[in-house]
């Protein structure tokens, strides 16, 4: 076993400090050390997108980082969006458009497209499909995910407008 290293990280606004083996994958750290099991594991080789989180605001595969690499960084996971009683607009859009079935890929999908949704008020279907290409879904044929993302873009944009 190699020397343990300290990992200090802010996840969804909460600071954590844990000591782990350097080889621990970031997704295992988030899930099993921090107990935030909303981020899922699908392939552990960076292709399926299920483990996508935001690292310093950008979507990355948490299965392709070692926990110590997150040291000093900020992470956002699905648990950092809305709650069951108060869904984030993107979560609401997924429910409204039936953009999930088994729901296993969903947290990764949502974290992948969250920046896209925030930056695109009215994306075309083609743009949305491109934005979704880094995430595999086996249940939906993507049809309703595409619609959910389009709806989410509208909802986020209109909330922004309201806030102004």
């Amino acid at each position, binding site marked *: 076993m190699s020397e343990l290293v300290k990992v200090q990280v802010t996840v969804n606004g909460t600071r954590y400090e844990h000591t782990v083996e350097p080889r621990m994958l970031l997704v295992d750290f988030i899930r099993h050390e921090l107990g935030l099991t909303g981020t899922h594991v699908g392939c552990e080789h960076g292709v399926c*997108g299920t483990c996508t989180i935001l690292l310093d605001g950008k979507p990355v595969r948490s299965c392709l980082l070692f926990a110590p690499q997150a040291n000093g960084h900020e992470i956002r996971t699905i648990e950092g969006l809305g709650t069951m009683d108060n869904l984030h607009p993107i979560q609401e859009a997924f429910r409204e458009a039936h953009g999930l079935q088994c729901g296993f890929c969903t947290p990764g999908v949502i974290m992948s497209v969250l920046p896209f949704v925030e930056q695109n008020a009215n994306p075309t279907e083609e743009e949305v499909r491109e934005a979704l290409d880094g995430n595999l879904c086996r249940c939906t044929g993507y049809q309703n995910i595409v619609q959910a993302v389009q709806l989410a873009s509208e909802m986020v944009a209109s909330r922004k407008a309201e806030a102004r």
Partner: protein
Amino acid sequence: MKPAPFDYYAPASVDEALDILSEKGYDIKVLAGGQSLVPSMNFRLAQPPALLDLNNIPDLAYIKPAPDGGVVIGAMTRDSDVEHNPMVAERFPVILQAMPFIAHPQIRNRGTFGGAIAHADPAGHLPAVTLALNARYHIRSKNGDRWVGCDEFFLGPFTTAMEPDELLVEVEIPALPARTGTSYHQMARQAGAQALVGVAAVVTLDPGERVAAARIALLSVGETPVLAGRAAASLAGKLLTPETIEAAAEAAATVDTDPGGDIHCSPEYRRHLIRVLVAKSLEEAGERARGKRG
């Protein structure tokens, strides 16, 4: 699919990194973006005894203009930062054209420009693109700095001219001459999948629209990124016509390369793709060169 144990080094400076590298040499693996290395480690295909993580060295991430009109890209610059850089887009649109084919945005947010070059995957996009752009690579070790031109850099699959104690610190891409057009085309089975063949073409025309210089680099066709020298030579001094383009594509598919097969692509299909994609890239690069009267 959990990686085997390793010793972990995360230096904060290049000098510190070079010290560690010179001490460990063959037994330490450099971790840049990790988007190719970590999957291998998760599969336990790669079990390096130690990792040298460069991600804590901010000095290696930058995009700078070169005095000649080119650019210099720090080895740890994230692919997505290159992809969205206006200067790169203006000076080397071919890089921008190739970028979206590198896996997926989530991977490009983490993967690095230098990491892809040093990894030297014969199917990698960036080795071939920088080869077409006649880049040179700035390499540093405790013993000093050296620059290796792209024609001498790629020695075999995943094998470069770098020694185990050396680090790639930046990539220098020279300015394109006037009347130069570039193009990138590839065939993959789906977005983000391995390219079956990819072609980067850089074509410079003389004032009479004849080919003054051409560099055509191919990926996924051999042991390294391959510069299609005979194809380029066949165009020298000629107008780009359907006939000369076809002849060049033929040379690329039959003289410059002897492609092998894999489960996605038989050698015959690969040859076919080389013909089609070289032709398409030359045509587009030529059009773009003509559009730039400079």
